[in-house]
């Protein structure tokens, strides 16, 4: 597992994507899967920056990534407001243009692109952990 910390700001999404992309590539994931892992991580990080740290300007994102047992694991830890992705309803993909809801798209993509998405919140410790796993095919 490699770990790194970033300020919770959108300008660091490039580096966040590079960090997980490099590890995925080094461990033999194909280009489509690498893109998917980067996209899922981007969506997760963006949600944390936008929601968990909505009222905090100097929040920190702890990112860990590693390959073990044929799968890549991406872990994001934040110390902001608890935000449980499972509480967000799935977007209606059949809705027409005027009815299509914009919210929930990021989480939906995370769930589609990764094999597992787990969320664990410890309000007492002010710590939220998002774990995503993708198995190599």
């Amino acid at each position, binding site marked *: 597992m490699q770990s790194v910390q970033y300020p919770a700001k959108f300008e660091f999404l490039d580096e966040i994507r590079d960090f997980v992309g490099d590890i995925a590539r080094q461990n033999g994931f194909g*280009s489509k899967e690498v893109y998917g892992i980067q996209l899922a991580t981007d969506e997760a990080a963006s949600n944390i920056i936008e929601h968990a740290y909505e009222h905090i300007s100097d929040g920190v994102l702890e990112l860990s990534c590693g390959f073990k047992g044929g799968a890549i694991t991406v872990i994001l830890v934040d110390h902001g407001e608890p935000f449980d992705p499972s509480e967000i309803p799935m977007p209606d993909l059949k809705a027409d243009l005027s009815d299509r809801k*914009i919210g929930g798209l990021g989480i939906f993509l995370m769930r589609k692109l990764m094999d597992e998405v787990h969320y664990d919140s410890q309000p007492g410790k002010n710590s939220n952990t998002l774990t995503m796993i993708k198995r190599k095919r």
Partner: protein
Amino acid sequence: MEITVQEFKHCDMVTVKGRVDSATAPQLAHALDSAHNGGKYKLVVDMSGLEYMSSAGFRALLAAQRNSKRYNRGEVVLASVPDRIREALELAGFTELFKTFDDPLLAVGHF
């Protein structure tokens, strides 16, 4: 990320190069808004130089499409959509909301 706008007789072409994510999507949204504010509702988004797009970009495109199609003023079409971005648009259920063209000039010609 770099955005350029080219005016054609019947539409504007917005060329997006680089990566669109939560940091850069506002610039895309702004370019599309500017076209609308200038009375241009028929828009081609040329994605030939686009390397990456997250849901932040999709949202900007969706908002622009709603605006363009309101009162039947026009529409937003996509050109030269890279494979990875096409796959993500399909996953997000967006491909049915936008016409796509392999070639930007074919897209311009369709207006």
